[in-house]
């Protein structure tokens, strides 16, 4: 269990991360979204201890995290980086050993991860002879090389094609297993598809956090209504609803004090109903709303 507790960070008096608190639950993929400059990277760097917080703390299973525990984390920084002139497998083994893994185990693990990415035959090649996409795969392998206890990945999917995104997502799901996994992304459709939990950051503050389902449910209950008749304007006269839009026989209404079945029976009493659908807000709408 990874808890971020009231983390703040200021640069030269400007607060870039402001009292950020959220939880990364083991076994649930947690997406970390926010506009550019919202403070995602700064927060992640503080979680890893690469950057010291101005105030607040990071808790691991309820107590303040230690350097040793952080060393068991897997991290992929926003600014990618490995040794360009070092051989791929040497580099992975070196990083694993820094994390305390012994050489033989590190070599086995490097082979396993490279094979997963179909890079087994490039193991002895120097990193900068690989394509950018493959370098990105090695970067992910670097964050997984020591079988981390938790994963913190800054924009792991950026720059990948859709097929690679799927391969990466399935690998992460498998590797993370029942461990906490936090990743940031600005691709909302991706986050919506992959994540169980979501934290939305805006101007350094958490503006929304919770499960994806909860967040989508936080908006008003909205229904699309299509009547058999060609003019649905009369429903503006009904009580307990707020009509957002009417277009011919179709209307968009938010429930305001009545249940869906009460609305439906009122409608059916007047006119046959061709369609009655719950409209779920896409994340992008939530995102736009909280970032206003």
């Amino acid at each position, binding site marked *: 269990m990874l808890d971020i507790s009231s983390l703040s960070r200021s*640069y030269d008096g400007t607060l870039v991360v402001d009292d950020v608190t959220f939880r990364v639950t083991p076994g649930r993929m947690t997406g970390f979204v926010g506009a550019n400059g919202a403070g995602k990277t700064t927060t992640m*760097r*503080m979680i*890893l*201890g*690469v*950057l*010291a*917080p101005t105030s607040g703390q990071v808790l691991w299973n309820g107590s303040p995290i*230690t*350097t*040793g*525990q*952080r*060393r068991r*984390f897997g*991290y992929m*920084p926003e*600014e*990618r*980086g*490995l*040794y*360009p002139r*070092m051989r791929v497998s040497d580099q992975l083994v*070196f*990083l694993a*050993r*820094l*994390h*305390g893994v012994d050489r033989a185990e590190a070599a086995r693990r490097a082979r396993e991860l490279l094979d997963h990415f179909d890079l087994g035959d490039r193991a002895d090649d120097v990193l900068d002879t690989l394509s950018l996409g493959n370098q990105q795969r090695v970067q992910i392998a*670097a*964050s997984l090389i020591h079988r981390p206890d938790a994963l913190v990945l800054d924009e792991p999917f950026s720059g990948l094609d859709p097929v690679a995104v799927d391969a990466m997502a399935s690998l992460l799901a498998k590797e993370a297993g029942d461990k906490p996994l936090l990743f940031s992304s600005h691709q909302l459709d991706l986050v919506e598809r992959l994540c169980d939990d979501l934290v939305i950051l805006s101007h350094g503050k958490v503006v929304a956090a919770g499960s994806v389902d909860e967040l989508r449910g936080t908006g008003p209950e909205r229904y699309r209504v299509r009547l058999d008749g060609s003019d649905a304007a009369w429903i503006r006269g009904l009580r307990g609803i707020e009509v957002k839009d009417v277009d011919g026989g179709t209307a968009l209404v938010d429930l305001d004090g009545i249940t869906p079945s009460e609305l439906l029976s009122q409608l059916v009493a007047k006119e046959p109903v061709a369609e009655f659908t719950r409209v779920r807000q896409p994340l992008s709408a939530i995102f736009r709303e909280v970032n206003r």
Partner: protein
Amino acid sequence: MSTATTSDPTSTSTTEEVRGAWRVVAEREISTRVREKSYIYSAVIMVVGVVATVVLTSILGGRPTDYKVAVTDDASAAIVSAASTVVDRTDDGSTAKPQQVGSTAAAEKAVRDGDADAALIATDDGYEMVGKDEIDSTLSTALSTAGSTAALKANADSQGVDLAELQKGSAVSERLLDPADGDAGARQLAAYVFLILFYITAVTFGMSIAQSVVQEKESRVVEILAAAVPIRAMLWGKIAGNTLLAFAQILLLAIAGIASLAATGETGLLTALGPAVGMYVVFFVLGFVALAGLWAVAGSLASRQEDLQSTTMPGQVLLFAPYIIAFSAGASVKTVVSMLPIMSAMLMPSRMAEGGVPVWQIAVAVVVNVLGAIGIVRLAARLYERTLMRTERKIGFGEALRLSE
């Protein structure tokens, strides 16, 4: 900006893991470096340079000479043998040996062909020295002395005079108030060789530390490293790895120097320089560790390779100053500087090679260097931690000192 590198004393297993990280870093420094061809080449060139210097000095600086003198009779041979002790007056092991030939013509031929350095031929009124175009002055003096002594002895014996009695009171001996050391030139040369090799080795390996740091910043791998191990462990690893490499090179050069002195038979010089060479290696390590801290900081202040030119300036100056001082400053300045941290690491062994350094000054230099190395490395660790993660631009030394934790 700085980094949280707080370690938890309660979790022993993990702190142990953290403790070993510097070794992994050091190993990478070494294995990366020894694979570079330039590293191998420069080491080989320096060893060859040291051996060549010793051998050339030995050849140019009065090697023992074995003079060959062609003679036609036993009396002349006896004179040549007697001259041998005169030739060796300077104890350099030179000898003069008679070479019996059948006739005067044969003796002249031997001289002409270069088979003999000179010929000693008996004449009616004494002896004649025959040379080709000139006769070596040492040999000529020795032969004339031995020849006239032999003649005097023979004449004295035939007249029944005691030669010793006759020569009594005629001996003129020599006493120098300030005798020149026979090895002074060689010692001076050794002192300069010490300085030059120290300078080259320290700059080469110092630069390689700075470059290795800035490469990690440039490639951004530094962020992954900082997330994996405490930043200090990275610094210790770099200092340890590169110091070991530089030490290996200096040791190799010292061994090459000693071995070639022994091989060329310069035992006198070897005895005189031995302690200086030993202390040279010790001083090098002490001086290099302190400098290594500065070079690592030079790397962490830079954001690109090009910045190194300016950020390595303090290290360059600290290495170049003793070099200048050794060549141009007076004795008292040298004495003082040879007891300051870092600079003394270069100057003291060089002074020791020249000879006549009081033991207390050597002791002071060692203590000052140990303290200096500890102080500078500690300061370097602080600066390194504060600046390593700042990859966006170059930082000055002064600014780094003012940065808060």
